[in-house]
């Protein structure tokens, strides 16, 4: 008998039903990576770096990669210069003095807030009966508030942090939570001032994928086909040993956020690479990592046309004055290897009214993928494909120590594979303040080696963003499960960043 394994995990792990992904996006921390502090520092508009915040244009992508510096930045461009912590000439005196740094004149804080009205419908199957949960006009005000801090600390050092405030409803109570979503320190061009090598340390969005940027997406719905797949969790289960890559949940698919060290760079102006090491699945009982094994990854991507990823051709590149436009294509490949040894996920199965408890270990898993990002006129089409292999080891419940993994079950254990992909088309709709996005995403959930396909997940998302001001927007979005039309969500939202 082949067992059903796999689901799309939810951000909050408690009580997830199988394929309940569509209803969950709103509960996930919607990243707010727009940084108005830089608009203040350079006294420039959001549009210099963003198509429609938080989505970056290619100039903004280069600015980010350069450690929040303009390509060929001059002193005069920085309208509110940092306070020098030591005269520049102290560099000559080093190591007999501390190397000078810099801090912004004011704490470079920005606030991003979003408000949403939610309408949704969700089919849940409980005890063989179909239930439909509907939400009508729920005003989630605010749906997200985040304090973003980012800046430069003298030459070669930059930082980014985000403190998020989240609200959720749990059993009739509004739960409020404040958390550090990201915080990292970056050493930019530490060696010979070359962009070929940079280091990022902290809790960050790994430089793993190239074609899309979940933290700076146009849509409310996240790329759940990329970040929300869990080959382990089968729904309605409690998870022992951690909830995926990110402390706040997430699947064991691609890490949206991780704790680790990221090495990345740009070679020959157009080839970007990254290699990193992350804690992986966590937390454990008393440690941020649930085991001592680390996850590792590499990526490479090449961009043809347009602004070079390192901004090196900015001074000679005459792009389009419509700063969301360029003619370019970037193609990337990535590989992620996870180590989930000694981490046992507890699962409950309802087998004809009898609750069966099993344990699943994912000691060795890989994610291999490719992505692309194509700009043409007012269109930006991008997408990614991921194939995941999980060498799952299944254990029966322990007889001697209930709640501990028991006897290894070689029949159920084996390599499970899932495949997922998405394509999104973003378009500027005639006016620079009106943006549309259409996305299709699908996941073939894990199948055993016998090739039996368990179930596919498909979702379509249609989204419209109107910039009311450069830093104020309205969003209308509809997302639907294509295999179950009664699973849908409709959002009306507003956002501000300052």
């Amino acid at each position, binding site marked *: 008998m082949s067992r059903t394994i796999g689901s799309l995990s939810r951000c909050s792990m408690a009580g997830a039903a199988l394929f309940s992904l569509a209803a969950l996006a709103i509960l996930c921390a919607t990243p707010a990576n727009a940084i108005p502090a830089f608009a203040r520092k*350079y*006294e*420039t*508009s959001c*549009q*210099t770096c963003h198509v429609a915040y938080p989505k970056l244009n290619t*100039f903004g992508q280069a600015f980010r990669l350069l450690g929040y510096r*303009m*390509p*060929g*930045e*001059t002193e*005069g*461009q920085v*309208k509110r210069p940092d306070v020098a912590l030591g005269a520049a000439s102290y560099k000559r005196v080093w190591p007999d003095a501390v190397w000078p740094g810099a801090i912004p004149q004011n704490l470079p804080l920005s606030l991003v807030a979003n408000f949403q009205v939610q309408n949704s419908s969700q089919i849940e199957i409980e005890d063989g009966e179909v239930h439909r949960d509907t939400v009508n006009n729920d005003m989630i005000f605010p749906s997200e508030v985040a304090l973003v801090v980012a800046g430069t600390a003298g030459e070669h050092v930059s930082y980014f942090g985000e403190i998020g405030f989240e609200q959720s409803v749990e059993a009739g109570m509004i739960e409020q939570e404040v958390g550090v979503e990201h915080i990292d320190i970056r050493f930019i061009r530490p060696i010979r001032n070359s962009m070929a090598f940079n280091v990022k340390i902290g809790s960050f969005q790994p430089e793993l994928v190239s074609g899309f940027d979940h933290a700076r997406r146009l849509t409310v719905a996240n790329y759940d086909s990329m970040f929300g797949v869990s080959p382990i969790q089968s729904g309605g289960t409690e998870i022992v040993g951690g909830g995926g890559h990110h402390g706040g949940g997430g699947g064991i698919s691609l890490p949206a956020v991780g704790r680790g060290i990221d090495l990345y760079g740009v070679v020959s102006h157009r080839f970007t690479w990254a290699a990193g090491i992350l804690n992986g699945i966590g937390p454990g009982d008393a440690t941020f990592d649930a085991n001592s094994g680390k996850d590792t990854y590499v990526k490479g991507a090449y961009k043809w046309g347009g602004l070079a990823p390192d*901004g090196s051709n*900015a*001074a*000679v*590149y*005459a*792009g*389009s*004055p*419509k*700063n969301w436009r360029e003619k370019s294509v970037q193609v990337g490949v990535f590989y992620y290897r996870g180590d989930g040894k000694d981490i046992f996920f507890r699962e409950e199965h309802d087998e004809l009214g009898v609750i069966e408890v099993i344990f699943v270990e994912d000691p060795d898993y890989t994610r291999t993928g490719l992505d692309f990002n194509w700009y043409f006129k007012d269109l930006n089409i991008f997408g990614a494909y991921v194939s995941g292999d999980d060498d799952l080891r299944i254990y029966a419940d322990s007889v001697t120590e209930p709640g501990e993994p028991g006897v290894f079950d070689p029949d159920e254990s084996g390599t499970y594979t899932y495949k997922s992909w998405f394509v999104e088309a973003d378009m500027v709709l005639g006016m620079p303040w009106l943006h549309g996005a259409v996305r299709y995403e699908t996941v073939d959930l894990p199948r055993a080696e016998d090739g039996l396909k368990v179930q596919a997940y498909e979702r379509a998302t249609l989204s419209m963003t109107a910039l009311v001001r*450069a830093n104020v927007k309205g969003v209308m979005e509809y997302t639907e499960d294509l295999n179950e039309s009664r699973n849908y969500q409709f959002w009306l939202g507003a956002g501000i960043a300052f």
Partner: protein
Amino acid sequence: MRKSATFTLILVLAVPVALAGNIQGKVISSGLRHNADAVVYVDEIPGKTFPPPAEAVVMDQVDMSFVPHVLPVIAGTKVEFLNSDSFMHNVFTPDKCAGKFNLGSWPQGQKRDFTFEKTCVAVLLCNVHPEMEAFVVALPTPYFAVTDRDGGFTIADVPDGDYTIRVWHPKLPEWSQSLSVSGPTSLEVTLKAK
């Protein structure tokens, strides 16, 4: 009480010896942070036309700003827009009198030009950096000046005669007055922000 503009005008007529003189003075704007960027000029002189300069006048785009912010020229003048920044800029105007031109975008060190044939106040914008703004004011005579931060200006070598003198400023109401020039002449204008 809230008049759109109040002004005081002080005319000092010097001894009428010279055939031309400087018009020197101040435009004080109340309600603004500084007194710069007002264009003071002699309006059309019936029966007289003035050829534009043979050389183009340059407006720079540097450190994500147009320099100068306000550029008066004689109608017919070719203005060259130079990009001095390490990334691209754009120049366009929504103003009809300048043909609503859009010069596209170009990289560092390069220039593109536009000839302002008609008298015109054209706002210049950059599509890439929406905070950038400048004005080219194309005028009928070469007798013009832009005020400094203190409001001071000097229009050099205005031939003796009776003129209409005007003040234009992006944020101030338009002002005009007839003025008799006979040798060095001074002029003080106080304008209140709209």
